[in-house]
Each structure stands twice: as structure tokens, then as C-alpha cells.
């Protein structure tokens, strides 16, 4: 039963990808996306209900963290898949065989990564996300998207290769510590206490840099603005919400290993430093950002920093970070999808060319504005609660300087993003009209609207089952003295 369930949730997107590649019709193919997306969501709910699962000799399994990540991926993908219907209908002439196939492969890779209980599998899955998302970034097939793809591919591959090295180091740490070598996650956790410190520490550094590149910690984030900026909004949403969550999961796994090896203090210091540097970089870059999709990329860097800080501080902040993981993913989804609509309508993403979006695209522009307010931590949206919880953890842990810096960066980023967002949303539309045939459809506005509603509800009322998902995930990251 367990095997079947996990196999099913993996095979669904993989089979969907194969089917998409085989289907000849550009019109029919996109329907595979919502189909797979919704089934995946249903299966995810079943998996979440089912409790801890394990399959394939313990190589795959579901623990509270995977449950959370799986939920995030599935929700986001489901929303994006409905959006994709509208988007691909609009761009029917562009062809979508590779696009749909890669989207489903991407989902497959993310699901695999979420369920991996073996570091090798985890690595392969994360690398697969890179490879399968590269063609998605290249979807627009122009000079800029080539450049973005190339940078993404190279930086991503180098990063992930470093992570491989880190995995090998950790494995060797076991060998050098006199134990049995295994890359099974549970074995590692079990034996970590005896691991050889130099190997383990070096391995941690490689893993941090490697997965940190995928997560997009500054200064390893350099591919992010290019990739997010040039990819279609839909892909941006999946990258910023899904891929980063998966990569962050890989970092959390690393953290678990370090916790088990009683090296928690060092690991958390590194996370804290990375988090603060990321927030600082994002704050500097987001100011007067002339391109609103790149701005969202920097915001993603910021939120990865927030997550890292939340996890590093511990206590209630870990809960906040877990909550924030979901909030960040969904809010980024809203923002990228809405930004994609605006981009299509104006055929530009430069702030100077895009003005008065609320007049031409009332729904998308409102979603963009509300999404901006949500992501910068304004109530009644859920990121307010999660960021506040992280801050509570920071302050009650006595890290007043960190807390002060955190608040300062948040404020600066709010200013930076706000001036860009407001000039995009309000004002009078420019003379150059863009694509006048572009219309908002139910698919392209409904999906982000649903996501926004979810974070709105979660910002006011956190139901107990949902709360338990976060709390269980956070409990895994608690340092046990």
C-alpha cells in the first residue's frame, strides 16, 4: 500500500511527461497539466493523511518535512497548471511540447526530492530539477533567455556538483569516523555522532554552498534575477516557490545531519550569516529596481534569507520558518503569475514602460499589489504572521542586533519594492500600447486569486491540522541537547 502510494505519486507526473511528449496536439496537451496537477494534489492530501510512510528499502519516505514540502509543491503546481491553460492558449503558436513535458518532469523531480530518504537520490532529484527547468527558462527563445538559461545551467550545475562533493565528504566522514558507509539518510542521522569532524565540517560547507546556490543565498544568487526575469511568469512562480523550497529542504536535511552530529551551533551560525547577507544583498538590489520581475527575484533572495535566519535561531522561529516556507511559495506564485500577465499585456517588464496596469488589467494589477503587500509582511496575509513569529524567536532568543537588522532590511526592501510596484500598478498607461489583444481570463487570474485567498485565510486563522504540519516539521529541526 505504502509502496504503491509513493510510486503512484511519482509515476503520475512522470507518466504525464511521457504522455505529453507523445501527444501530437498543441491544443490538447496543456490539459494534461491541470489533470496531473489536481491528481497530484489529491494524492498529496492522501499522503499527508497517511502519516509516516516509507518505501523502496527506505530510500523513499515521508517524514513531516517532506509532507510540508510536498504540500507546498503540489499546491503551487496545481495553481500554476490551471494558469498554464490560459497562458498556453494565448501562446498557442509558440508550440508547447517541450514546455509541458519539462513542466511535468520538473514536478516529478521536485516530488522525488521531497520524498528522498537517500542523499544520492536527493542529489539526483535536485540536479534533475535544474536540467528539466533549463528548457522552461528558454521558452521565449530570444537572446536574453539564452543568456539566462546558460547562466542558470552553469551556475546550477557547478553548485549541484559542489553539493555532490559535500555528500561524498559526509559519507567519507562516516568512513573516517570508523563507521559503516551509507548515504541512507536515517543511517547517517543514526551514526552522525561518531563522524569525523573535519570531513563533516568540510562536507557541510560544500553542501551549504552547493544547495545554497540552488536556494539562492547571496552571493550565490546571481543566476536568480536572470532566470526569473527571462522565464515566463509561470516558470518563475514554480522556480521561486517550488524549486527554492525543494533546495531549502536539502539544506534542512544537511542541518538535520549537523544537529545529529552535535554540530548544530556551527551550522546555525553559518545559516544566520548566510541569511543576513542574503537579506542585505536583497535590500541593496531591490532599491530602484527597474525591472519588476528581477525585483521579484531579489525578493526571493530575501525570503530565503529570512528562512535561513528563522531556522538558525531556533525555538518558535523554526515554526515561523516552516510556516513562511508555504507562505513564501504561494505569495511568490501570486506575484509571478500576476507579473506574467502584466508582462504579456505591456510586452515589457521595465518600470518606465509599464504604468497604470490597474487601468488596463484591473485584476492582475490588484493581485500584484496585494501580493506585494503580502510578501512584505503586511497583515492580514499570512507572511505577516510567519515573519512576526520568526522575529519573536529572534528577540526571545536575545539576538537583538539580528532582530534590529532583520527589521531594518525588511523596511528597506518594503521601500524598494513598493516604489517599483506602485509605479507599475498606478499612474496612466503609456502611449505605446503593448499587446492590445491581451485579455485577462479566468485561468490567468483565478489561479493566483485562489493562492492569495489561501494565504489570506491562513493569515487570519490557522486551522489545527495545518498548524500541526508546520509544528511537526519544526519539531524535526529542534536541537535535542
Amino acid at each position, binding site marked *: 500500500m505504502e509502496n504503491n502510494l509513493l510510486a503512484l505519486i511519482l509515476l503520475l507526473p512522470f507518466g504525464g511527461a511521457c504522455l505529453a511528449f507523445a501527444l501530437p496536439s498543441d491544443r490538447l496537451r496543456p490539459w494534461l497539466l491541470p489533470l496531473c496537477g489536481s491528481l497530484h494534489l489529491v494524492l498529496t492530501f492522501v499522503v499527508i493523511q497517511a502519516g509516516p510512510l516509507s518505501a523502496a528499502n527506505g530510500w523513499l519516505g515521508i517524514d513531516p518535512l517532506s509532507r510540508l514540502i510536498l504540500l507546498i509543491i503540489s499546491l503551487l503546481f496545481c495553481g500554476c497548471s490551471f494558469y498554464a491553460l490560459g497562458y498556453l492558449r494565448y501562446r498557442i503558436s509558440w508550440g508547447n511540447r517541450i514546455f509541458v513535458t519539462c513542466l511535468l518532469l520538473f514536478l516529478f523531480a521536485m516530488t522525488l526530492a521531497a520524498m528522498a530518504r537517500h542523499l544520492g537520490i536527493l542529489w539526483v532529484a535536485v540536479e534533475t530539477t535544474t536540467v528539466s527547468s533549463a528548457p522552461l527558462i528558454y521558452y521565449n527563445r530570444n537572446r536574453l533567455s539564452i543568456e539566462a538559461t*546558460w*547562466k542558470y545551467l*552553469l*551556475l546550477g550545475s*557547478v*553548485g549541484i556538483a*559542489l553539493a555532490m562533493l559535500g555528500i561524498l565528504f559526509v559519507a567519507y566522514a562516516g568512513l573516517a569516523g570508523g563507521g559503516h558507509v551509507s548515504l541512507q539518510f536515517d543511517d547517517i542521522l543514526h551514526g552522525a555522532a561518531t563522524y569525523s569532524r573535519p570531513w563533516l565540517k*568540510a562536507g*557541510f*560547507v560544500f553542501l*551549504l*554552498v552547493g544547495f*545554497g*546556490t540552488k536556494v539562492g543565498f547571496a*552571493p*550565490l544568487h*546571481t*543566476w536568480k*534575477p536572470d532566470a526569473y526575469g527571462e522565464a515566463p511568469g509561470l516558470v518563475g512562480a514554480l522556480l521561486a516557490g517550488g524549486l527554492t523550497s525543494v533546495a531549502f529542504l536539502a539544506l534542512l536535511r544537511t542541518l538535520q545531519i549537523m544537529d545529529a552530529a552535535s554540530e548544530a551551533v*556551527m551550522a546555525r551560525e*553559518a545559516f544566520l550569516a548566510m541569511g543576513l547577507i542574503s537579506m542585505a*544583498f536583497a535590500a*541593496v*538590489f531591490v*532599491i*530602484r529596481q527597474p525591472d519588476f520581475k528581477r525585483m521579484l527575484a531579489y525578493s526571493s533572495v530575501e525570503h530565503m534569507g529570512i528562512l535561513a535566519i528563522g531556522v538558525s535561531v531556533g525555538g*518558535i522561529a523554526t515554526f*515561523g520558518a516552516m510556516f513562511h516556507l508555504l507562505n513564501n511559495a504561494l505569495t511568490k506564485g501570486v506575484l509571478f503569475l500576476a507579473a506574467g500577465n502584466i508582462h504579456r499585456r505591456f510586452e515589457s517588464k521595465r518600470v518606465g514602460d509599464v504604468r497604470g496596469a*490597474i487601468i488596463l488589467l484591473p485584476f492582475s494589477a490588484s493581485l500584484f499589489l496585494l501580493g506585494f503587500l503580502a510578501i512584505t509582511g*503586511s*497583515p*492580514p496575509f499570512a507572511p*505577516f*504572521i510567519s515573519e*512576526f*513569529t520568526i*522575529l*519573536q524567536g*529572534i*528577540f*526571545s532568543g*536575545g539576538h*537583538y542586533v539580528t*532582530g*534590529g537588522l532583520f*527589521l531594518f532590511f*525588511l*523596511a528597506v526592501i*518594503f*521601500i524598494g519594492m*513598493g*516604489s517599483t510596484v*506602485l509605479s507599475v500598478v*498606478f*499612474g*496612466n498607461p503609456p502611449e505605446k500600447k503593448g499587446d492590445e489583444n491581451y485579455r485577462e481570463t479566468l485561468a490567468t487570474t483565478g489561479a493566483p486569486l485562489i493562492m492569495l485567498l489561501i494565504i489570506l485565510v491562513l493569515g487570519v*486563522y*490557522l*486551522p*489545527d491540522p495545518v498548524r500541526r504540519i508546520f509544528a511537526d516539521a519544526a519539531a524535526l529541526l529542534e536541537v535535542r541537547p
Partner: protein
Amino acid sequence: MNFLFLSWLLLGLGACTASLPWRSSKIPAILGGGSAVLGCLSGLIAAGQGLIAGKAETFSLPWSMPGGSFSLRLDGLSAFFLLPLFIVGLAGAVYATEYMQKEKAPLHWTWYNFLLVSMAMVVTAANGLLFLFAWECMSLTSFFLVITEFNLAEAVAAGWTYLLATHLGAAFLFAFFLTAGAFSGSLDFSSFHLLGKLSVPVASALFLLLLVGFGSKAGIFPFHVWLPDAHPAAPSHVSAIMSGVMVKTAIYGLLRMCSFLPVSPVWWGGLLMALGIIGALFGIAMAALQRDVKRGLAYSTVENVGIIILALGFWMQSRAAGQHLIAALALAGALIHLLNHTLFKSLLFLGAGSLIHGSGSRNLNHMGGLMRRMPVTSLLIVCGGMAISALPPFNGLVGEWFIYRALLGGGSTLSGLGGFFPAALLGLLALVGGMVIIVMTRIIGIALAGSPRSPEAAQAHEAGWPMLSAMTVMALLCLAGGLAPVLLLRVAGQAGVLLDPDSANLFAGQDINPWWLGMMAFMLLGSLLAAFSFSRWRQRRGTVAAANTWGCGFAFPASRMAYSAESYTELAQSGMFCSCLIPESKDGQTVGYFPLIRSFVFTAPDPLLEKFFRPLFQWTAGYCRRCCCRLQSGNLHIYLFYVFSATILLLFWAWQR
């Protein structure tokens, strides 16, 4: 409490239903406006109960958010702030049914109702997270109201300045609540009494956080920069709410939080007094220079907040020095002035809105002669002008009377520096009082009196009954406050005894009772009536002829020759103001004996905003951009180098561990 919930329910329902896509434009007005009116009435009952009951009512529900609980507390202080909130909310709602344009109205109702709910929640919240939640909701909803005219660039710019200021301020509040929560172990206000054990330096740091955080919302002097832009951009009843009520919620926060902190060192009060008097002088001077009527009123809010803060500072200082009578007077003055300011400032903003509605311009120089075209509005504005100038028989005098009495008490009984500061402040406050009269006679004289200064003003139309009735209620309340000052003291006393328990008997006793003021107001009305009847009697007896205004020999006086808004303050400007306040004028020079037609641009921007904050922000932004260009140059080699060096650095770091 139940009525408060009922009010929230009604307001919330109205907010949610008003902006649905209804066919008819009347339905949103009925749903939104009706719910706002009913909600405010229900809220008024709650506030009244809170004031009469005199003892705190609490309510608590668990909230699933970490650190949060849905705890509310309605005590005298909260009720004291709820009362004006719902009064102005009610008047604003009635006013808006006529004032708002049809297409903007539905969404406006949503934000308006939510603004009322969030403000009421701010003053009743008894949990830090809930307070911040409501606080931020209040900022956001008011931001959306400010940008109601979102197609105008200046409205959006004003809204943005506002949002920026309030958000930066909120960051300080976050820091305060989080630190306070860390010290007291919980974010519930019921545990905040533990803050009373803090050492003075820590408490002072917290106090400064509060001052900046709440100051940026309240418009305390260096943080007022958003206010003069935001108020003119918002619809007038929203300006009334923002200026009359929202700004005061910040003062509520300051008072409430300070009541948790240990008894203050003297310098806290001194700092507040200094900021207060600077703000008052600055605000009123800037108000005298504005040609935009609502901008002028906005600066007048800066001035009045300055006065309130001054009085509060004096209260803190005298309490710290053990002067209970003076402290009670100052506190009563601050609270009563706060209440009064709510009433007359919202009256004036509503009146200004009516003028704009009627004449189509916010520029004083384009109005003129509206007294004839809009008699009721004009009468009400004159009442408001008298109230804000603290002239009898209106309520403005009552608050100022207490503040003056406190300062006089300090100046005439204390010796040394203790007497010097109140005396000096008294003189400066008197100067402010004189300048308020300049500002108000300017608005009345230029906008209402004389002959029309533009074709639109000549065609101005009087507002309809919803707008007029809203204003009339406010004006009557202003008059009632002036005639029955004891009532004002009773209401303020409910809040006062909570803030300063030592002076509870003073609030109830005769020492600071202002009933003579009411008596004098009645006598003034009597003597005015007598003089008026005499005048009528003589007029009946004699003949009445109509003629042109005496032009001192000039036969054809025109409205363009009359004193303009700028010339009205020229004398004060050249005689009294320091050079940094002087407005900028461009292209005014005439050349030659027969000069061509010249255009003349005259602006009075906020000097602090234009000469300090804006350059600072722009420089920082430019610097950041330059950094960005260097760091993210588009070169893949450098990016790879970042990865490489990050690895090496972290390896070194790990090695050191």
C-alpha cells in the same frame, strides 16, 4: 463589549458586500453607508457604556497564531478613544454618501469600513500581535483610501510617502513589542506590567522606539512629513478620519504603552515638550503658507498634535517631579484637546471637502465669495475656525485653557528652570495661538469672503443634506463642548484616572473644574445676543442702502485685486518666519517698463521632506544602484568567482571553528 462586536459585524458585512459587482450604483451606498452608520451607532453605545461603567471589560479567545491571542480590553482609556472614532466615523459615512463619486464609491466603502474596524481594534486590543495586526490593517486601509484617486500621480505619490512613513514607523513598533514580549514573556498586555521592573536605560530605549514608531503615525514633528501630502490627496471625510481619529490612535498607543513602562525620568517629558512646541510652531507656520486648503489644515494637525504632545510631555515631567495638580491639569488639557481636535478638525475637513465639492478646486485663490453661494457650509466653517482658534464659546478653548493653566501653574509657582520652561513654552504657545488666528482668518477671508476669484467659484453650489447634516452635527458638538466643559472633563477623566492614578481625586474634585468657562461662554452668547439685537434695532429704524465696496477712489474693484492667499501671509512671513520655511517662487520677475505677461509659480513644500528626507533617500538609492551595477555586472565569470570564493571563505571559517 457586545455592542462593539455588533458594530464590527455590521461594518465587516458592509465592507464585504459593498464592493461586489452590483448592477445599481445605489446598492453599494446603501450597503456600505448603511452598515457604516449602524455600525458606528452601535459602536457609540459600546463607547458610552465603557465610559459610564468606568471599569474595564475584557474578552479573550485563543488565536491559533503563535504568541497571539484574541484578547480585547475596553476600559476608560479605550472608550475615550472609541467615542470620537465612532462620532467622526458616523459623520464621515453620512457625508460620503453624497461626496463620493459613483464609480469609486463601492471600493471606498470596503476600505472605509475596514478602517473603522481596524482603528477600533487598535484601541481595544490587549495583545501585542493583535495590536500590530490591527495597526497594520489600519495603515493599509487608510493607504487605499488615500489613493482613491489613483489615476492622479500626485495622489499615488502622497499615498506612497504615507505608506513609507507608516511602515518605517511600524518597524520601530515591531521592535518595541518584540522586545517587550521578550522581557515579559508574553505578548499579552496583561503581562506587560512586568516591564515596570525594567532599568531606566532599557526603558528609555523602549520609550524612544515608541516615540519614533507612534510619532511617525501621529505626525510628531520630524516624522510628520507624510501628513501634508496624504491629507489633501484623500477624500475629505477620509482626511477627517485620518486627521481626527487615526492620528490619535498613535497617541493612544503611546499613552497605553507608556503606562506599562516604569515611571519616567524627567527628560522623557522634556523631549516630548521640545518636539511638541517645535511641531506646533513649525506646523502653524507652514499652515499659513499653503494655498491648498486641505494642505493647510493638514499642517494645522501637525500643530495641534504638537500641542497635545507638549501637554503630555509636561504631564510626564510634572508627574516625575511630583507636581500632581499641574500634572493633572496638563493631562486633562492633553486629553480634552485631543478630543476637541477630533471634533473641530473633522468639521473643518468636511467643510473643506464641501468647498472643493462646490467650487471644484482645492486652491484658496480659486475660491472666494463662497459665503454667498454656500451659506450653510460657510457658517459651519466659521464655527470650526473659531473652535480651532480656541475662541469662546467653542470647545477649542477648553483644552487650551487646561494646558495654559498647567503651564501658568508651573511658571508661576516653580522656581529656577522648573519655572523657566513652562513660562517659555507658554509664550511660544501664545504665539502659536495668535498664528492660528492668522491661518483661520486667511482661510475664511480668502476662500469664503469677498467676491469670487474664479468662474467656477462664481458657479459654486451648496452641498446637499447628507454633507450638511454631517457637518452640522460636528459643529453642534463643538459648541456643546464649549458650553459644557465639565462634560469634556468627565469624559477625559475616565481616561485620565487610568493614566495617572495619583490624581484620581483631582479629576473628580473642584480644583480643576472648568464650569466657569461654560458659564462665561453662556455670558458671551448673552452679550453677543444683546449687541446683535441692538444692531438689528438700529437697522430697523434706519435705511439700508446697497453699494459697491469702497475702493478708496478706484471705481472698478475686481476680485483679482483683492488680497490673495499668499499676500495674506507675506507680512508674517517676512517678519517672523525663518528663511528655511519661506516658500519657493519661480519666474516672478518682470523686466522692462512694459512687461509681457508673466507666469508665476509658487510652492510651499515641506522643508524637512524636501531638504532632508528626500535627498537622503535619493542619495542612498543612487548609492545602492551603483553598488548593484558593480556587484551584478552580468559577467558569468565573476558569478562563478563568487561561488568559488564563498566556498573557500566558508572552508576557512569552518577550519577555524
